[in-house]
């Protein structure tokens, strides 16, 4: 079953053409790793399909409806966002809210859910990401890895059909990356549909079922992760994987 389909998405910032007409189809349960050098448009792609940036062109098929990405009404945007989750590189937790409040805000404020009911759901999700004991802490009292796990619980709160991860471990100290990846791996194994922009090669190789390599606003190569990693077809992919795999010293 197709969860999401993007067709011919284009985006420019001033003179620079960031996305040059990409197509992407996501099936239910897919975990898609999006790789590529800085400036290749990976993050912009995610931001455009969740309307944090307005695409210049392109269509989005989601929940049985087709949307024109360049002409979204506020209502359409809200309708799509209600069924998607987004995890940011810098967590972006609400600084004035506790962990549990961060998770339940979307339910109590945006959907007017009963507070007690939202709390039960929220505690359940915090349990899932191993943060239940920290539910009453403020973001400033948590480590980066813990904040990101709360952010993942927050993205799960709306019971989304797909979650977008925008370099979820790039801002973390090396020793904290593992705990976040472990949570993501568990989600993947539980069948959650995910698009993950990442530099974590092990995650892409071992957890994602499809890998997509982007450069200069186009998809250079895509396919089953094992295949892309073991037998990359394009010279550029091979070069990128070699560089990313070599120790950075």
């Amino acid at each position, binding site marked *: 079953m197709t969860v999401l389909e993007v067709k011919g998405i284009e985006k420019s910032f001033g003179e620079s053409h960031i996305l040059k007409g990409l197509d992407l189809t996501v099936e239910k349960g897919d975990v898609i790793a999006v790789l590529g050098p800085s400036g290749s448009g990976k993050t912009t792609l995610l931001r455009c399909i969740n309307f944090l940036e307005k695409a210049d062109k392109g269509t989005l098929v989601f929940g049985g409806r087709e949307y024109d990405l360049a002409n979204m009404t506020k209502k359409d945007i809200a309708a799509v*966002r209600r069924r998607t989750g987004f995890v940011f590189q810098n967590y972006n937790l*609400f600084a004035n809210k506790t962990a549990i409040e961060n998770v339940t805000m979307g339910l109590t404020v945006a959907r007017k859910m009963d507070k007690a009911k939202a709390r039960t759901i929220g505690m359940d999700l915090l349990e899932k990401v191993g943060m239940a004991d920290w539910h009453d802490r403020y973001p400033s009292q948590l480590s980066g890895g813990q904040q990101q796990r709360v952010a993942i619980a927050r993205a799960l709160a709306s019971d989304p059909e797909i979650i977008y991860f925008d370099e979820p471990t790039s801002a973390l100290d090396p020793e904290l990356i593992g705990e976040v990846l472990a949570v993501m791996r568990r989600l993947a194994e539980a069948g959650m549909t995910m698009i993950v922009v990442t530099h974590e090669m092990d995650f892409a190789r071992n957890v994602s079922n499809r890998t997509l390599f982007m450069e200069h606003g186009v998809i250079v190569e895509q396919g089953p992760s094992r295949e892309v990693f073991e037998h990359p077809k394009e010279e550029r992919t091979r070069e990128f994987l070699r560089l990313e795999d070599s120790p950075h010293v």
Partner: protein
Amino acid sequence: MTAATWELILESFTKILIPGLLMTIPLTLLSFGIAMVIAVTVALIQYADIPVLKQICRFYIWVIRGTPLLVQLYIGFFGLNNIGISIGPFAAAVLVFSINEGAYCAETIRGSLEAVPKGQLEAGYCCGMNFLQIMTHIVLPQAFRSAFPALFNSLIGMVKDTSLASNITVTEMFQKTMQIAGRTYKFMPLYLELAFIYLMFCTVLTWVQRWSEKKLSHYETQGGR
């Protein structure tokens, strides 16, 4: 100092303090309250980048910050009366003080709004909240916290600025002191006494500020991680 001077000081103390309690404080609190409503509205309009309204706000801030408060008071009382709009001196003072303070505080709040990381706004949208919900629950509370010391500065400044209302016949503390001094010619002790009463008012406000800042900083913690 002679015994007569001490007697004058003691005797005039309540005479000055009462208009302080009945005029200076209500004038300050009322004007500052209205100023806050203006300030938040004007700051939000600019933050949300609403065309036309935004230009009107910039114009308002430009004019108010570019003209003396005393002149504004004269326009608000004598000027308005002149063209047939007769509002009492107290009402005129409230009107002018709130419009004046609103412009300054709007800039304070706008700065604090812009200092809240934009990522939280985006996260709010991704959680399905709309602009107003994000403002009320996430951005404004944080902006208010960081603007708090500067806003309190404005409030303390306003307590003393209300003395200018004496110019438009509001019988507040300064007006009352001038009346007593004009009768007794004891300028030094009386104006020192007045200064002391202003200082007391502001000292209490300083305590309130310190106490509220402690209350407000619950989500900030020792050092960042």
